[in-house]
Structure formats: C-alpha cells, structure tokens
C-alpha cells in the first residue's frame, strides 16, 4: 500500500511549509540536509546509502556513483529515515528491493513526497508524462510514479 501514517504526513507538511521546500522547482532539500553531516562514498552499485543516528550528530552517506537524480533521491531517502524517527541507529539501504521492508518503503515514499510536490502531480500528471516531470524535478522517473501512486491512494487526485 502506497501510503503513510498521518503523523508522518503532518511532519513532512510542516517541514515543507517551514523551509518553503516546494516554493521552487526542482525542490531544494538543503535546509534540511545541512543539519546532518552529508558525505558521498564510493559504494558499489548495490548500495544507495546509509544514515547513522547518534546522540549528537546524524551522519548521512550516499553513493557517489549514482547519477545526480539518483543522488538527490538517495539523500532524501536517508533523510526520511531520520525524519520518520525510526528506531534503528543505522540504516543501510540498497538501490533495489526497497519495497520489501516497511522502513525502506516508508522512507522511499517520504522521499517521493518531499521531492515531487503535490501541486506538480495534481496539475501535470497524465499518462506518459512522468519521464518529463522526472527530468524537470531532477529525480528518477520511478519516484514520480511512486508519488503519483501515493496521490491516488491518498485522494489527492
């Protein structure tokens, strides 16, 4: 099911509003990401990135070998683990198979919610346009599809 708990949606709506994340396109997540130690690493193609939550600092690492759109998605995905306040101290995320685990699925959906604004989906989505939207939003095509799926399930469109 492509949906999220109400409290998480409230949290993300608050962040989007607080930092004006959706006021410009493509979405710039730096107001959130700058609160973490962000680095890129020479991971194999299997690994998307990781998030390490420690009492005084949060460390996010992403795969430097992803294309720029993939890197934006990876950063949003790892930040989503932190925003969701999931209980583990370390999240290590694969580039594929994210849909099989609850926390990974949730983080990917949150990444889509952050990087693909509701208004864009409401006003522009139609069959065959996802690749163009993905280019404009600088995200992978799959993330636009996921956001659209969420919008339908959640009654946004």
């Amino acid at each position: 099911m492509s949906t999220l708990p109400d409290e998480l949606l409230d949290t993300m709506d608050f962040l989007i509003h607080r930092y004006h994340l959706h006021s410009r396109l493509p979405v710039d997540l730096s107001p959130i990401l700058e609160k973490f130690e962000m680095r890129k690493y020479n991971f194999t193609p299997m690994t998307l990135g990781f998030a390490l939550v420690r009492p005084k600092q949060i460390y996010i690492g992403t795969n430097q070998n992803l294309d720029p759109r993939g890197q934006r998605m990876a950063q949003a995905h790892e930040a989503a683990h932190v925003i969701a306040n999931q209980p583990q101290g370390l999240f290590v995320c694969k580039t594929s198979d994210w849909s099989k685990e609850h926390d990974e699925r949730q983080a990917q959906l949150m990444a889509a919610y952050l990087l693909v604004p509701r208004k864009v989906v409401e006003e522009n989505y139609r069959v065959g346009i996802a690749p163009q939207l993905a280019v404009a939003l600088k995200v992978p095509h799959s993330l636009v599809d996921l956001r659209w799926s969420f919008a339908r399930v959640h009654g946004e469109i």
Partner: protein
Amino acid sequence: MIGPAVRQLRLQRKLSQETLAKAARVSSGYLSKLERGVYKAPSGEVLGRIAGALSVTPAELYKAAGMEDFLVEHDPALTPFLADFAPKLDHLPKRDHDIIVGVLRRVFQEEQLEDGNREAEDDLIATLRGKR
C-alpha cells in the same frame, strides 16, 4: 609499545606526569610504568581517557606509536559499538561493508575523544576548585 608515544605527546604538550595522570584519571605510578613500557597494553577505556587528555584520538595515539593497525583489531571498547550495528552490515558487498565500518570507527573515535576531553575538563575544573 604505546607508552613511549604517550610520553612523547605529553612532553610535546609540556604536561607533567602528574597533570596528565589527573586529567586521564589514572595514578601517576600507572602512567610512569606505562610510559616506561612496564605496562604494555592499557584497556580501551583507559586508553580513551589518556588519548582524550592528550587531545588526540586513540587511533592517533596508536599511529604515533607505529601501531595504527592494532586499534582496529584489539580495542575492546570499539568491539561492542560495532557489534550493535553488525546485523545491518550483513550481506553487504565487502567494499560497502568496509566503507561503513570505517565511518562507524571514525564516529566512535570522535565520540571517545569528545567524552575524554569533557572528562579531562571536568577533572581539571575539580582540581582547580580543590586548590582554592
């Protein structure tokens, strides 16, 4: 041996054995024997305190002693820290595993240094208050 490196760093910082011992919360006798090589392998906890009092990480201390590889395999304080995260690292490609373990070690050492510095500061403040 770690002792001569401790002595060298202590002298570089113009600290007496007594001052360093107090800051690291060990006895002067222990520190003296460590520096002379009578004691060869301090525990990870003691090493962290001594390193913190010298304002270096344990890894830097081992590096100064020419023993930088030793920490990775033998620091007893590091092992449970890594063990907490071990299940998350299963089934990763070796390169990715090694990168993330490297990050965990760095974070652990930074946290140890910060804790060591805080304890050393607390001890110094307590010492100064005691002299009043």
